[in-house]
């Protein structure tokens, strides 16, 4: 007798789909999707899309029949929201996959990281394609250029950005000047990178002479992009330093500037450092500003203040758009993807580094 009672559904869950309903619909959608794709030619991407649509339609119409329109609408919204997330993952996976597949052959070529493009002409690339000779040339000059330009940009941006954020938090007091700076820093984050490059170019054309293109010009262009990021992140970090620390310091008779340099900044240093690292990660991949300010070079240039300079992003750009050998672009493509892989690894390491810094050097809280 009790068996019948157990089998009967509770009045509370009446008119609801069973918990396992989505799994059933998913299984059916996958099978039907595979069947449909088998008729028109199977591929995994199409299978995923068709199955996802079938799943959404199946679940929503089943829910509409059993649970009513409101619940069905809720299910539809859930399907769309989850679908949006999956769609957003597609390009990420695709980009990383493409770069890995195309970049690894370039990266494992001997001498790729240690040689420049000096003297590597189309003739060598033709030979590499036609006779199977090894692909010559590498990214050493570009890597060196990227490091020099980014380093100089960091040296310019960090003091300016940090001092500005100190002004905003410690001295600003919501004065008109502070409000204007906050507003224009926000606006500055939206300056297109190529306009920043044009500004640096126009500035140096006017000051030094037309056609001035050096690593330093590129560094100025990158600092225009980097300063607002540094200001914003440092400002947030200085703001969360507890006021009690400042007041305790003042109560001991310590000057304001000593308080800032000895108490406030050390407390916030982990956040500031990780913000700076993120800002570096942001500008290290910028192409357009370097393109219009540093020109292209195929040789190693150790002087930031003189001569054209290569960088990883512009190296990728020129190798794709103007292959070393126009008739056989494959070696150039291989080098470009290898450089892209190196660039992505650099950016990811910087991002990871920022998280590590934030965690390792975080002020000890609690007791």
């Amino acid at each position: 007798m009790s068996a019948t009672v157990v089998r009967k559904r509770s009045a509370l869950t009446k008119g609801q789909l069973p918990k396992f309903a989505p799994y059933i619909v998913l299984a059916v959608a996958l099978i039907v999707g595979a069947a449909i794709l088998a008729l028109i030619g199977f591929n995994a991407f199409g299978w995923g899309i068709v199955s996802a649509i079938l799943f959404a339609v199946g679940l929503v119409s089943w829910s509409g029949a059993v649970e009513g329109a409101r619940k069905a609408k809720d299910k539809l919204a859930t399907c769309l929201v989850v679908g949006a997330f999956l769609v957003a993952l597609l390009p990420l996976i695709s980009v990383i996959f493409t770069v890995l597949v195309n970049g690894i052959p370039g990266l494992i070529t001997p001498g790729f990281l240690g040689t420049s493009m000096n003297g590597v002409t189309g003739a060598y690339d033709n030979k590499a394609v036609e006779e199977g000779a090894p692909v010559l040339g590498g990214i050493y000059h570009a890597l060196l250029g990227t490091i020099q330009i980014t380093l100089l940009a960091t040296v310019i941006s960090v003091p300016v950005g940090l001092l500005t954020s100190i002004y905003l938090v410690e001295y600003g007091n919501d004065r008109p000047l502070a409000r204007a700076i906050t507003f224009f820093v926000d606006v500055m984050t939206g300056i297109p990178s190529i306009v920043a490059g044009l500004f640096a170019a126009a500035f140096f054309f006017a000051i030094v002479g037309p056609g001035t293109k050096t690593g330093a010009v590129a560094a100025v262009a990158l600092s225009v992009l980097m300063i607002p990021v540094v200001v914003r992140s440092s400002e947030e970090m200085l703001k969360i330093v507890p006021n009690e620390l400042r007041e305790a310091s003042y109560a001991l008779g310590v000057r304001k500037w000593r308080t800032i340099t000895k108490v406030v900044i050390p407390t916030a240093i982990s956040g500031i450092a990780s913000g700076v690292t993120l800002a570096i990660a942001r500008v290290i991949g910028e192409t357009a500003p370097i393109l219009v300010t540093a020109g292209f070079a195929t040789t190693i240039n150790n002087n930031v203040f003189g001569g054209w300079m290569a960088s990883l992003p512009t190296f990728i750009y020129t190798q794709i758009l103007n292959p070393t050998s126009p008739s056989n672009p494959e070696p150039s493509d291989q080098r470009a993807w290898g450089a892209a892989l190196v660039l992505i690894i650099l950016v990811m390491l910087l991002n990871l580094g920022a998280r590590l810094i934030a965690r390792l050097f975080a002020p000890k809280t609690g007791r």
Partner: protein
Amino acid sequence: MTTNSLTTSQGAGRAGDKVFSGAAMAAGCLILAVLFGVALFLVVQAIPALTAPAEDIQGGNGFFAYIAPIVVGTLIAAVIALVIATPVAIGVALFISHYAPRRLAAGLGYVVDLLAAIPSVVYGAWGAAFLAKEISPAYDWLATYLGWIPIFEGPASATGKTILTAGIVLSVMVLPIITSLSREIFLQTPKLHEEAALALGATRWEMIKMAVLPFGRPGIISAIMLGLGRALGETMAVALVLSSGVLTASLIQSGNQTIAAEIALNFPEASGLKVNTLIAAGLVLFVITLGVNMIARWIITRHKEFSGAN
């Protein structure tokens, strides 16, 4: 007698205070000066192009005939990017803020942020080498069956290097911007509003429609505007993906050009008046993005005052 390093600097104290506050203020003023300088130097270098005789400018019809088609091209690419990115971004933001399991949400947010970490030139290379090739059959299909709509007029580009492909790549690049800003706004929705809606028997979607979206609307709008600013100024995705040409209504033929890509493609080899013309084009881009960003920031600040969300 031991001395405290914090309090020994009696004489240097007053001067140090002055110097330090002065330096901090100078740094702030420097930023204002830089922004002012951006505008000033662009204007100074652009004037020769604006005042030059019409036949000296590329195309031979003066600066405005030169700039008008690429301004329209820029707007087309940006609009395509936003049309694709906005619904997806809001969906992703809702997923992370209200649908994903709590434990996973932070990690998933980081995954979406990774999209923003990938350099633009890599997106450009991906769009040119992978996406354009994969998507060109879809363009053939569009040209065959929807060719009667002007924007899908055939014949479709065989290489797939069209403004629509560029727009899709741009949409991937603005997606993380719109997502992260909307997510912040959605997370600020007053918990009581949400719980009140759920307690009255609303489904999760009804709760989002009644509590989360109305609260977040100004934030979403400004997020979209900031995404627009990014899409307008993005260079590499267009320069590498689009095979540019004259202004065309069809999105699936090669043609059209954007300001940023025009500058990137021509500036390295430019000389003389051409440099001034390109800088003037940059000035136009600067003014457009400045306007868009200022409106976005204005919406955010106004929203902050009214909502009490912070």
